[in-house]
């Protein structure tokens, strides 16, 4: 069952500026037209056109991959490798959403990196262990809430790093990136039931890991 609050795969990077459903469709069309033009130019050898695509999507793909790969250095390597791969495989793009296409390549790169990471374990999310690093604060933030938020972020990040990569990828794609079950199934090459199972069991595993610290998340 699709959640109506979820956004379409081709949603614009600054979805907050979209006024309504009709406006979103219009902007999506414009984005897709722009992406198709850039892809065509990149296919003909225009590196600047490809780099325009990189500029459009690197923040989204970074935020996707850095949640799937706890080590930021490795996450950066995965994103860079994904853009390399996309550039090499421009000919394999067969229309549709460029964002989804790039996301799929990034997911593959992130999974590859995590396979390597299992052989070389690293400290997950080291910046969250660093007390000097804080998440961006809104104007309404007060010191106490910031401390709680930072602690919650640290606990959740640590818990995310401890569930399986498949579960983590499914949860990030669903909860963070806003893809629906069908899109995640298509991206990760598994069945709809497997996607749901990974999300459900991943959340259950997170709850088990966070059992002692659930007060950070309640109320």
């Amino acid at each position, binding site marked *: *069952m699709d*959640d109506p609050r979820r956004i379409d795969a081709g949603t614009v990077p600054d979805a907050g500026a979209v006024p309504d459903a009709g406006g979103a469709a219009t902007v999506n069309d414009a984005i897709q037209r722009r992406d198709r033009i850039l892809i065509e130019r990149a296919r003909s050898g225009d*590196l600047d056109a*490809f*780099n325009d695509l*990189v*500029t459009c999507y*690197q*923040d989204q*793909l*970074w*935020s996707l991959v*850095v*949640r799937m790969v706890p080590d*930021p250095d490795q996450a*950066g390597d995965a*994103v*860079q490798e994904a*853009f*390399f*791969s996309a*550039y*090499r*495989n421009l000919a*394999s*793009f*067969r229309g549709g959403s460029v964002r989804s*296409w790039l996301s*799929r*390549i990034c997911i*593959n790169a992130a999974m590859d990196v995590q396979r390597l990471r299992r052989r070389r374990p690293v400290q997950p*999310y080291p*910046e*969250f262990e660093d007390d000097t*690093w804080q*998440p*961006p604060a809104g104007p309404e933030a007060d010191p106490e809430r910031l401390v709680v938020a930072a602690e*919650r*972020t640290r606990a*959740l*990040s640590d818990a*995310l790093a401890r569930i399986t990569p498949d579960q983590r990828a499914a*949860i*990030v794609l669903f*909860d*963070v990136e806003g893809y629906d079950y069908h899109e995640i199934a298509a991206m990760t*090459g598994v069945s709809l039931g497997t996607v*749901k199972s990974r*999300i*459900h*069991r991943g*959340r*259950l595993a*997170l*709850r088990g890991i*966070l059992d002692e610290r*659930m007060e950070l*998340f*309640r109320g």
Partner: protein
Amino acid sequence: MRPSEPTMHDQHDLDLVVGYSAGDLEGAERADAQALVDGCADCALLVADLRAIAAATATLPVPPRGRDFRLSPEDARRARGWSPRRFFDRIGIVPSLGAGLAAIGLAGLLLASIPGSGATSFGAATTESLPRSAAGAAAAPGAATGTAIPLPLSGAAPASSAGATAAPLPDIVAPGGMLPSASAAPSAAASAVTAPAPSASAGTPRAAGPPAAAPQASPSTPLAGSQPLPGSASATFGGPSPLADVSLGAIVVGIVLLVLGFVRRRRSLV
């Protein structure tokens, strides 16, 4: 809502509760889950916790992006260039393995098809060198008397020549790989293998028994009690050699791996 006993919650269907928390249930399942949540404080707490975790995950801050991922002209040149490592990275390990297996298989088939290479089918040359009478006597299952020579024919060990005073021909038998199996033969035949064997070129000893009494072995019909050598894929002379069998197997497996790898690769990129 009433507090639940721990044992009761342990018996509840957690998958149902988790599905309910995600809004994935409909109809009877949803009603069942709703009943659990309404009647069990622990189930209700689980739903609230799962939703809180999902909400917190959605707002998890992103560490700052430390680098620009745009490609330089040098990057682009390297990305479009060719190198063995990139080739294998691009193709993938499974298709590479498949291509390797298929190539080895093709080479093996080629080798097996060269006459006189030693890798061809054993049957032709060996059978040619056998006197038909000897072959017939050797294949006679009912030659209880007389001197039969347990010559291999049709890939069958003539172990059924009970009571025969037989001499195996090492220079013929060994290349064919069809040594009579003493253990599988009747006890009387076991003594036959101890007799010295004249070479084939010097004249194969004739069967003392009447050859006509022995039915001619069919090239494609293994005899009872016959035992092919280990490693021989086919128990018949004239069939494919082990090398050809293995080569064909390698080609088939290689092609399957190639197809699987390319399909998987295509699915991951398109």
